[in-house]
C-alpha cells in the first residue's frame, strides 16, 4: 500500500519541495522516534511515530514546527470486520462472478495504512500549519497489551473531546487525559461501537437488501442469474458513461 504513490510519480515526476523539506526536518529532529512516513507529492504527508513518543510529538509539532491548528484526532481499527463486510459480501461475490474474477476467501490479517504499522489499533491526528499552509497526518500504534498512548490535551486542548470520543468508540486509553468519560454514549453502554468486531445490530436483525433484492421486470421470462445492472460489460475494466 505504501507504494501507491508510484502511480502519480510515473506519469509526471511531481517534486513536492515543501513537503519533502518538512519531512527531512522532522526526520532529523525526531530521530529514531520517526518509524514510518509516506509522501504523496502535491497532495499530503503522513508520518508515523513510536507509541512512547506520541505525547511528546504534540509538543514538538506545536513549538518547533509551527503546527498551531489542531484539526482532528481519531483511531483506526485495522481488523477486517467479521460483520459489516461479510453482510455485503453477497453483493461482492455476485459482482466478482459477473466480472469473471476469482473469489477470494476473507482473510483475517490486519491491514496497514500509509506509514506502515503492525498493531490492530492506530491513533491518527492531523495538524495544520498556517505559516506554510501544509497539513500533516501523524500516526502511532497502540501497544497491544495496554492500548494506551499519551494525551495531546496539554498542547492542543481541542484534543480533549476527540480523545474522549476515540476512547469510548474504540476502547483505548489516553494517559494523562483530565477526564476520559463517555462523550456520546449513555454511561451504561457496553462495548465499543466503532471496533470492527462490534456488530451493527440493524444489519444483524435484517440483512441489507442493497441491489441484490431488486425484483426482475414482469416480462422477464427466465429467472435471471445475475442482475441486469451487474452484467459483465459493467465491470471496472470497461468503463462506460454513467447515464445522465
Amino acid at each position, binding site marked *: 500500500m505504501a507504494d501507491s504513490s508510484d502511480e502519480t510519480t510515473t506519469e509526471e515526476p511531481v517534486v513536492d519541495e515543501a513537503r519533502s523539506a518538512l519531512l527531512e526536518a522532522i526526520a532529523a529532529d525526531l530521530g529514531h522516534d520517526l518509524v514510518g512516513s509516506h509522501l504523496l507529492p502535491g497532495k499530503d504527508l503522513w508520518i508515523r511515530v513510536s507509541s512512547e513518543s506520541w505525547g511528546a510529538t504534540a509538543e514538538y509539532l506545536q513549538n518547533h514546527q509551527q503546527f498551531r491548528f489542531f484539526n482532528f484526532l481519531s483511531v483506526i481499527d485495522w481488523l477486517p470486520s467479521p460483520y459489516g463486510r461479510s453482510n455485503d459480501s453477497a453483493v461482492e461475490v455476485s459482482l466478482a462472478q459477473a466480472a469473471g474474477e476469482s473469489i477470494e476467501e476473507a482473510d483475517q490479517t490486519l491491514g496497514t495504512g500509509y506509514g506502515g504499522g503492525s498493531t490492530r489499533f492506530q491513533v491518527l491526528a492531523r495538524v495544520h500549519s498556517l505559516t506554510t499552509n501544509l*497539513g500533516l497526518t501523524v500516526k502511532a500504534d497502540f501497544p497491544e497489551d495496554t492500548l494506551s498512548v499519551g494525551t495531546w490535551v496539554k498542547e492542543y486542548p*481541542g484534543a480533549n473531546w476527540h480523545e474522549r470520543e476515540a476512547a469510548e468508540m474504540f476502547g483505548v486509553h489516553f494517559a494523562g487525559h483530565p477526564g476520559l468519560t463517555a462523550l456520546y454514549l449513555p454511561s451504561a453502554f457496553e462495548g465499543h461501537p466503532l471496533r470492527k468486531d462490534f456488530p451493527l445490530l440493524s444489519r444483524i436483525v435484517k440483512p441489507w437488501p442493497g441491489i441484490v433484492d431488486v425484483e426482475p421486470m414482469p416480462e422477464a421470462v427466465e429467472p435471471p442469474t445475475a442482475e441486469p445492472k451487474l452484467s459483465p460489460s459493467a465491470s471496472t475494466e470497461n468503463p462506460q458513461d*454513467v447515464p445522465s
Partner: protein
Amino acid sequence: MTAISDRRQLAYIAAQAADARVNVELEAEGMTLNIGPQHPATHGTLRIVARLDGEQVVEANPVMGYMHRGYEKLAEVRTYPQVTALINRIDWLGSFANEVPFILACEQLMGIEAPPRAQHIRTILFEMARIANITLFLGDMGVQLGAVTPIFYAFRDREHILNQIESATGGRFHPNFDRIGGLKDDLPAGWIEETKRSLREIHKFCDQMDDLIIGNEIFQARTRNIGVIPPDVALSYGLSGPNLRASGVDWDLRRDSPAGLAYDQVDWRVWTHPDGDSFARYWVRLQETRESCKIVEQLLDSIPAGPIMAKVPRIIKVPEGEAFVETENPLGVMGYYVVSQGGLEPFRVKIRSASFSNMSISPWLLKGAYVPDVITILASLYFILGDIDR
C-alpha cells in the same frame, strides 16, 4: 471611606473575574443550572450543565449524544455512492456542502477529476448552501437577544435560495446531487437568471440585517467584548471558519487550497475581525454572506461549456489508500478521512465536522461568563447539533 482610584478599582474587578474562572472552592455553595436538552437556544438537543456562583458561570459542561447517529459506523457498510445520502444529514442547513469534501476525497483516491463545468456548478451550489445556512444564523442571533423580527426576514429570504437549490437538484434540504466524477444533472433552463434575482434579495436582506442588528445599540452592548477568543486559543482548540476569522486569523481554505473547486477564478476577499468577541463573529458572517453572493454572481456569468461527468466506472471501486480532504464549509472546516481497502465500501470514514471542534471551546469560553451571556456566546459560535453529534 476614601474612594479607591479607577485603576485599582479596575484591577479589583479583573481579579474578581479571574477568580470566577479558576475558583473551584466556591462550588459547594454554587447552584447548578441545567440548560437544555430542550432549549430554544441550542438548535436541537444540546444540554449544558452550568455551575453558577451568583450570576457567573464557574464551570460549564456540555452534554452531547442526544442525536448521535453513528455515521462513521454506518458509512462502513454502505457503498461509496450511498454514503452521500447519509452525510447530507450532518449539517442539515447547508447539506450540499457536506457532500463535496467526501466526493473530493474519493476522487483523489481514484485519481479522477470532475470536468470544469461540474467544478463550477459545484462551487455555485456550495456557496448557495452557505448562504442558506448563514442567512438563518443572521436572523437567529436576534432571537437569542430578544429581537424577534429578524428571524422572520431570514426565513422569508432563505426561501429564495432554497427554491433555487430545489429547482436545480430536486431537494430543498438534502440535494444528494454530487457524484464521484461530476454531478447528477445539468442546471435547468432559466436557472441562472432566477438565481441572480434571488441573490439580489439576499443582498437586500444583508443590508436589512446591517441596519436592524449591527446598528442596534442593544445588540452591540450585549455582544461587544463578550466571549472573547484569542487567536492562539482558537487555533489550539481547532476552531475554524468564521469563528476563527473573527479572532483575526486570516485563513480560509477557499482561498488557500481551492483544489477541486472554482474559487481561484473569481474575485473576492476574506474578511477578518481583530476583536474575537460575539460581535465580531456576527460581523464576519454578515460580510461573508455578501462575499458569497459576489462569488456566485461571478460564477454564474462564467460557467464553461462541456460535460458534467467524468468517465467513471459504473460500479465504483475505490483503490486502496487513504485520503483526507477538507473544505471551508458554512460552519467551518469540514473534512473526511477516507480509508479504502479497495472494496465497494469505505473501510473507515472519519468525519471531521466543524461544530464539534467549535463547541469544544465552550467549557473554556463560558467560564466566568454571566448567565444571559451564555446564550449569546453559544448563539454566536453557531453550531448545528447534527454537526456535533454526527
